[in-house]
């Protein structure tokens, strides 16, 4: 899916597909490596949600949301909460140790296969290793998956 850089989650990667940068910063960002087709990763979000650290061409660069929103990236990842029924691979779990541990108990961990059975307003029904589970939207939002 194509999202602005500012909407990516921590740890997610994507390929830059379009730039609509304001003139004043365009040259600077080109020089830092923000060009079409380049891979970029959201490394870290600052304590107050803005700015964010992105890794591009091997270095870490901070951008604020007001700039990052003009850079569109093609990611194959989506949060589980917006996944339609089908099979997915877990890319990462965007949360603290506690959430990761809980998900691990459900066998939901990086690289695992998850099948979404039903995505309703309240909860997401998934099947992992033949077992059926219900995840809340909040939990599902933090599990980032990509299509198989």
């Amino acid at each position, binding site marked *: 899916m194509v999202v602005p850089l500012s909407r990516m989650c921590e740890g997610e990667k994507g390929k830059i597909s379009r730039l609509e940068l304001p*003139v004043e910063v365009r040259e600077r*960002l080109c020089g830092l490596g923000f*060009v079409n087709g380049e891979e970029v990763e959201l490394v870290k979000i*600052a*304590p107050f*949600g803005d700015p964010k650290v992105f890794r591009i061409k091997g*270095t870490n660069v901070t951008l604020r949301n*007001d*700039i990052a929103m003009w850079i569109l990236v093609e990611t194959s990842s989506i949060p589980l909460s917006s996944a339609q029924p089908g099979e997915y691979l877990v890319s990462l779990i965007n949360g603290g140790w506690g959430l990761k541990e809980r998900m691990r108990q459900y066998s939901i961990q990086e690289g695992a296969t998850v099948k979404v059975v039903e995505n309703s307003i309240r909860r997401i029904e998934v099947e992992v290793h033949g077992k059926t589970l219900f995840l809340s939207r909040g939990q599902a939002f933090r599990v980032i998956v990509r299509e198989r």
Partner: protein
Amino acid sequence: MVVVIGDAINLERSLYLLLQVLELRGDVVLAVNAVDEARKAGLEIDKNELGKQLGIPVVITSAATGEGIEELKEVLVKSARSSSHIHYLFSEEIEEKIEALAGRFRLVPALSEFDGRWLAIKSLEHDNGVEKLTGFKAEKDFSSELAETRYRYIKRVLSTSVKGKEKHGWDLSEAIDHVITHRVLGIFVFLSVIYIVFQLTFTISGPLSLLIESGLESLGSFLGNSIGPDWLRSLVVDGIIGGVGAILVFVPNIFILFMALGVLEESGYLPRAAFVIDRLMYSMKLSGRSFISMLLGFGCNVSSIMSTRSISEPKERIVTILVSPFISCSARLPVFLLIAGTFFGTKGGVVVFFLYLLSIVVTVLSALIINRLLFKGEPSTMIMELPRYRKPRVSSIMFYTWNKGRHFLEKAGTIILGASVVIWMLSYFPAEGSQSYAAMIGRALEPLFIPLGFSWEMISSLVFGVAAKEVIVSSLTTFYGNYAVMGSAMEVMRVAISPATAFSFLVFVLLYVPCLPTLAVTKNETGSYRYVFFSVIYSLAVAYSVALAVRVIGGLL
């Protein structure tokens, strides 16, 4: 002759800058720096191959170990002209446009000092500066295509000249980053670091300042006993030693602050701190980097202005320089303590707290106002590279500290020295005390300050306070001391000045004209007297109106 210094670990990006410089058609030498780190990371750079591909001299250096520095010097002397530049081509469509444009620009006499091809490339990138220069605007923005071509070319160059891939795995830098920029821990780390810096500067510099103070005192009394004529003794002891000494006392403070700042900058923490705190500054249309400068202002406004040098955006730097004098520096504290203690007794603490709060409020509002006045309220951007963590080296920290602190010493020796002599003359001639020129100036200005209720003694000490804020204390006590038949100058002041006036005086002291050293570095760092005038007039206007408001409100209570 241009030397482009590249980062050996991240040559791709460094070469992008190099290509842009080469497009300007200058003589360029490439220094690939930090090669020691690159070797550790398993990278091997073939400088001959790189030089052949790019058509310019390439030197491999390491500023940390000193490797290659001599060679770089030799190359700089030898190759005043580099032989042949690389000529890399953009796509056919773009090359055609470049050729056509370049041909047109070459015919314009006004543009003859620029390279035609470069002008053409910049025009296609919609570069504002070049568009203004040529008066031509390309119908389409090709900057993205141009950048992609450059990167493609760089990849080809690097594929033959750099071997080995950067190792990936557990990375110490990343582990440290995880804690330092963490959502919760990050703020905690930030606050502790700042606290430690302040504690260090004040605990270490305290005794040193006292040492300097007592040294100057004994020098003063020694000279006072040995110099003949009265006026000369007064000039040397009260004027020069008193005036310059008031500044010298801050030297340890400033040097230690810069040393701490040097460690933070060298190690790579400073940009992370700016990152953590940036959101708070965004509402002031500034960035996290200026927050750190402002914070330093609580120690001394001079060091805070000097530290703005690492703010990359000029607009933001100017705003930070202009507002940071409103941060209440440590030199204002003696004035606050004296007057608050005299007039408000045990409530003095509350008064001082209010003044600090006011200082922050005025700083924030001024940042918004000045941004609107000078830069039409555009927010600054926060594009910043987070460097790798490095172990700070003693030699470079010493260099950093000396380099920044030196200017302060120079100012003490020149501007402050001159100002001290002038101030001394004003207060000594034609007769000391209430008959002096200073007193006349105070009386002459009195009508202007009637709304505020300041007496000429207060006004004269404000005039002196421009040299250094703490001078206000000594001149107030001198002036009022003259009246005291019995008891101290404080008691005279308590009778002569109403609490509301005293309070508005404090506010005025907090906000009025930055001290001379601050104005001097403002000139130095902005490179123009325009901003110095702005700073003086703006701060006077703010001080006068806020002090008036305080007096009126205080009078009603």
